[in-house]
């Protein structure tokens, strides 16, 4: 048994043993779980891929004469206006009013971070405090007061894989799905995925300090659509999309390599986000979960051509099978492709490991762990007035 304090003391002295979630699997194979529990202090996990539920809170500072911004655009991308006079939230998926989904919130975030100048246009209504009705200025990340990345749902614990049985090509948030089971797209980083390494949320929670977008961030708690009740395998790893995280960090100290505006063909704008989470190996139970390998992590393959909430499935596949380049469906080998980057996830896990080893990054013990009993509900079916009308018709 180790405590956060003991591990942080070791980090301070430069004695902490830190390995990535890939490396810990090799150690477990070679020396067993007990050796992992004894030797390893921290395991670094990571993921990098499109995470639509992302965005940034901005405070622009006041204009002279002041304006209460009631309509806001950043490079023609609309931002939310229902906050105080010069505060806004820019969502990653908001599309440009002039260029459509070719440019959007995700791109504005990346451009801000790359030091580019962004055109801010705002309209307001006259009040005694705020006489100005219109402003157009150029802003940069340095010129504004705050830029806080706040992502309501990131870092899914596992995610369903997608295929398409219909005769037509589908363009989805899982990328292109070719007709007649032409491919299977999958998205998590498997054995490197943060919440898969902490399947029962024993270490990740409100306050956990993380790598976010190349800088420091924090876990605020469960993300939206958090679904801890997902069906699980015997090793406790969920068999499809399960828990999620809400993340926050100061954009000003992030790095544009790890936050990338993306346009998913015929689907929309998104933001590729790099997340790295350290997991303290407090006991043998945690040593066991961080040592779970791709071959023992399964996800469910759903048919995206059925546009219903409960889609038919084509069974399950392990990440080892998915990574092999093809999976068997109905006796045929169907090619697979990822939609998130293992290459970048590995890079992030290695960077976080390096930060901790060099004594630049300490672990924060969460003040509240993630909920394990939240129910995940669909939208209620039709409103009562509408269903009454329907029943009259029929």
């Amino acid at each position: 048994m180790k405590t956060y304090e003991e591990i942080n003391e070791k980090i301070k002295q430069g004695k902490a043993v830190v390995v990535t979630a890939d490396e810990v699997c090799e150690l477990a194979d070679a020396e067993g779980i007990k050796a992992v529990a004894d030797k390893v202090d921290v395991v670094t996990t990571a993921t990098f891929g499109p995470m639509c539920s992302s965005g940034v809170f901005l405070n622009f500072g006041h204009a002279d004469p002041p304006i209460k911004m009631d309509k806001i655009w950043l490079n023609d991308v609309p931002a939310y206006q229902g906050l105080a006079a010069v505060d806004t939230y820019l969502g990653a998926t908001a599309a440009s009013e002039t260029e459509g989904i070719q440019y959007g919130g995700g791109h504005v975030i990346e451009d801000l971070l790359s030091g580019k100048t962004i055109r801010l246009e705002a309209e307001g209504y006259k009040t005694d405090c705020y006489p100005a009705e219109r402003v157009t200025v150029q802003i940069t990340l340095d010129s504004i007061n705050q830029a806080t990345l706040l992502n309501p749902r990131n870092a899914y614990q596992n995610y369903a894989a997608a295929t398409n049985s219909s005769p037509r090509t589908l363009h989805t948030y899982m990328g292109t799905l070719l007709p007649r089971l032409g491919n299977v797209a999958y998205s998590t980083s498997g054995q490197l995925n943060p919440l898969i390494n902490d399947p029962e949320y024993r270490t990740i929670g409100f306050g956990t300090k993380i790598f976010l977008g190349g800088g420091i961030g924090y876990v605020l708690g469960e993300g939206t659509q958090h679904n801890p009740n997902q069906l699980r395998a015997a090793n406790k790893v969920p068999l499809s999309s399960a828990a999620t995280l809400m993340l926050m960090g100061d954009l000003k100290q992030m790095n544009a390599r790890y936050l990338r505006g993306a346009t998913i063909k015929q689907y929309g704008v998104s933001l590729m986000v790099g997340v790295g989470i350290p997991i303290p190996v407090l006991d043998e139970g945690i040593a066991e979960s961080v040592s779970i390998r791709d071959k023992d992590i399964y996800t469910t393959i759903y048919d995206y051509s059925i546009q219903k909430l409960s889609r038919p499935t084509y069974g399950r596949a392990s990440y080892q099978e998915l990574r092999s380049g093809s999976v068997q469906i109905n006796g045929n080998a169907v090619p697979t492709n990822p939609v998130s980057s293992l290459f970048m996830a590995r890079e992030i896990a290695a960077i976080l490991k390096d930060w901790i080893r060099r004594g630049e990054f300490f672990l924060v013990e969460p003040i509240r762990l993630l909920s394990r009993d939240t129910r995940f509900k669909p939208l209620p079916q039709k409103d009562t007035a509408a269903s009454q009308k329907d029943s009259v018709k029929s």
Partner: protein
Amino acid sequence: MNTVTRRVILTFPPNLVEDTAIYHLIKDYDLIVNILRAKIIPKEIGRIVLELRGKLDNIKKGLSYVESKGIEVKSLAQDIQLNEDKCVSCGMCLAVCHQKALTLNAVTWKIEFNRDDCVLCEQCVSVCPLKVIQVSF
């Protein structure tokens, strides 16, 4: 008349993939034909990237002959460029690259582009979410 060089892409509809058009370009129009890339699978759409050398007049006549047979001719002064510094190796482009010109290295998980297998179908260009694949002229 001087000898000139032109690069073209011929797209064969499935019923014509076993056609003899190239033979006629050489024989009847006196052209030197260099096949730069080819992907032909019986009963599927086939693509051939050709370099033609000969008299301009013969190239033009030869290509209209090819077109008259129902084979699509596109002039080619372009190439696929992958910006490796900006690519994140997400793998989304793999779904549409039937030629497997784009692959993920199974050890490094970094994307690799093999120009020799590319038939310039341009499917990957609009699929790449970061727009790091471009057609250069």
